[in-house]
């Protein structure tokens, strides 16, 4: 590699970080949006290039400032981070394309500040994904979290403020737990580089601090990733954020923290702490099953579209954790693949919500009765994305659930029992998506039906996202390969 391509791993972090002060200087809303969208799309293109590079020539490493690892900060893009980078930059680009203006919560002359915060959130999330340094990950975590709090606080109602305060407190506790864990590992090994950590823990004679670190890091990251029962910040934060922000963070932010969680638990701790992986499995599997059942059941009872989808996210995080807690290559493959596919499905659904919210201004189910006749294109897209969330064959959601079931069956009778919650969760997903469809298609629209479709560019972006769901349902090769290689990397180190 030579020239610019050697610097590729750093670009998804550098570009939004440099663009954010630029957006402050631009001030004008349209220009700010254009600059933010352009840099996000550029990062998306870089992410695609990186995926191609990883598939062609393996792991891409980059020494920041030419300081070699383990002393310098190392950026590493392997199959797992390439996939996550694709999710993060893709979600950001789609959500920005649909949002030339943030809902009514923010005055026009201050909207540029929100695009600034958006770019910082993007830089932080990309940074977490590419960084190979534990402390660097913490810093990026806080950059992205602080920016996300600002974005959510821009929501139209005052409930957004109460929700964001709770998120801020819980998010900070989660990040601080992570910091404590990193501190304990540093005490025992004297390194912050993840790969170096894994090698050096093998020489540690007293493993108790490492065990404590494992606990702190797992719980802290689970809090950030909204793993049941640490999810209580999530529904309010998602539901009261501006629509475009919800589409962005719902598609990628919890997955990024799950990514760090898997990195630590499978790469750093797995081989070094005796019995760690059995404990991980024993703790996470029941929580994952409860998350699937509880999240779906609560979603059934919701009367607001955004709350409904937010609780469904809690359940979907359960599927990802369930795959990981099987601790087999096939299980982890299913979990990682579900990160990608859920990002596609939930991202598309929240884009549809953004269209509905913009055109009709209401999101409670009883007020949406007959709305499909007013916005046929948007609701048709909602239905297809909903099918993907449920896991109907031909859509992306089916592929990962299918692999999850196959991975569970590998375990024999015990595994066959695990299929039950997956199926119950899917049936409940059918019901809560049907609730929306029933209200929108079969509800009483009143005497006169006025067409009130969302602006054409929003519907176009929405359909692009929906068609991706179908495309990756029929051609799951690329994410599947990446997920399989990532799972092999995590479990077998190759």
């Amino acid at each position: 590699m030579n020239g610019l391509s050697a610097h590729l791993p750093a670009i998804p972090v550098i570009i939004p970080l440099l663009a954010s002060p630029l957006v402050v200087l631009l001030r004008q809303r349209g220009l700010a949006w254009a600059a933010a969208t352009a840099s996000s799309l550029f990062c998306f293109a870089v992410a695609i290039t990186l995926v191609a590079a990883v598939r062609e020539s393996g792991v891409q490493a980059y020494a920041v400032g030419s300081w070699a690892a383990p002393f310098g900060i190392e950026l590493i893009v392997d199959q797992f981070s390439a996939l996550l980078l694709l999710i993060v930059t893709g979600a950001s680009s789609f959500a920005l394309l649909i949002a030339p203006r943030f809902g009514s919560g923010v005055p026009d002359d201050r909207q540029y500040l929100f695009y600034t915060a958006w770019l910082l959130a993007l830089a932080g999330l990309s940074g977490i994904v590419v960084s190979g340094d534990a402390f660097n990950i913490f810093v990026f975590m806080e950059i992205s979290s602080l920016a996300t709090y600002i974005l959510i606080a821009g929501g139209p109602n005052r409930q957004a403020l109460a929700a964001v305060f709770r998120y801020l407190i819980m998010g900070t506790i989660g990040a601080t737990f992570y910091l404590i864990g990193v501190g304990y590992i540093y005490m025992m090994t004297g390194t912050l580089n993840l790969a170096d950590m894994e090698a050096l823990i093998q020489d540690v004679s007293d493993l108790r601090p490492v065990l404590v670190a494992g606990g702190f890091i797992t719980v802290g990251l689970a809090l950030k990733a909204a793993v049941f029962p640490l999810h209580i910040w999530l529904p309010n934060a998602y539901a009261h954020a501006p629509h475009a922000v919800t589409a962005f963070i719902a598609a990628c932010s919890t997955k990024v923290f799950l990514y760090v969680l898997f990195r630590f638990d499978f790469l750093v701790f797995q081989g070094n702490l005796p019995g760690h992986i059995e404990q991980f499995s024993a703790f996470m599997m029941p929580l994952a099953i409860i998350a699937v059942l509880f999240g779906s059941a609560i979603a059934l009872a919701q009367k607001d579209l955004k709350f409904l989808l937010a609780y469904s996210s809690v359940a979907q995080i359960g599927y990802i954790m369930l795959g990981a807690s099987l601790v087999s290559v096939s299980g982890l493959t299913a979990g990682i693949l579900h990160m990608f596919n859920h990002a596609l499905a939930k991202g598309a659904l929240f884009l549809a919500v953004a269209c509905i919210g913009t055109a009709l201004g209401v999101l409670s189910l009883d007020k949406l009765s007959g709305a499909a006749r007013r916005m046929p294109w948007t609701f048709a897209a909602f239905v297809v994305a909903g099918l993907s969330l449920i896991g109907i064959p031909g859509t992306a959601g089916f592929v990962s659930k299918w692999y999850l079931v196959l991975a569970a069956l590998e375990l024999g009778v015990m595994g066959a029992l695990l299929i039950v919650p997956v199926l119950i969760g899917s049936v409940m997903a059918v019901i809560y998506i049907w609730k929306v469809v029933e209200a929108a298609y079969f509800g009483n629209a009143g005497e006169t039906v006025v067409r009130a479709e969302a602006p054409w560019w929003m519907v176009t972006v929405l359909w692009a996202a929906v068609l991706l769901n179908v495309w990756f349902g029929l051609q799951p090769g690329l994410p599947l390969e990446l997920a399989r290689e990532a799972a092999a990397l995590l479990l077998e180190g190759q």
Partner: protein
Amino acid sequence: MMEYLGLYNYWVFAVLLMLGLYAVISRTNLIKKLIGMTIFQAAVFLLYISMDKVEGGTAPIIQSHMPGQLYSNPLPQVLILTAIVVGIATLSLGLAIVIRISEAYGSIEEDEIRKMDNA
């Protein structure tokens, strides 16, 4: 016994950590929650600062007239400098949100806010 008392830095760390977390969980006043959060973070700063101490070590500045001098490890101090900055940013954002909450709700008590939301 002395072995454990000698680690008093770490005892203070643990006690501060629990105090901070308890304040965050038990207080309903949002400002008091933020104070608890700050104590919680400060405890972690103390953990990092404590671990860099090398017995008999001095400040990590190389001096040519003192060859073979032991130095404390400077890296955790640098790390925690970053974490302190992050903590300040979080605290100021938290306080800004509390101001907005107080403007929007007329209260900064969590239970009253919840009552208003549910009403």
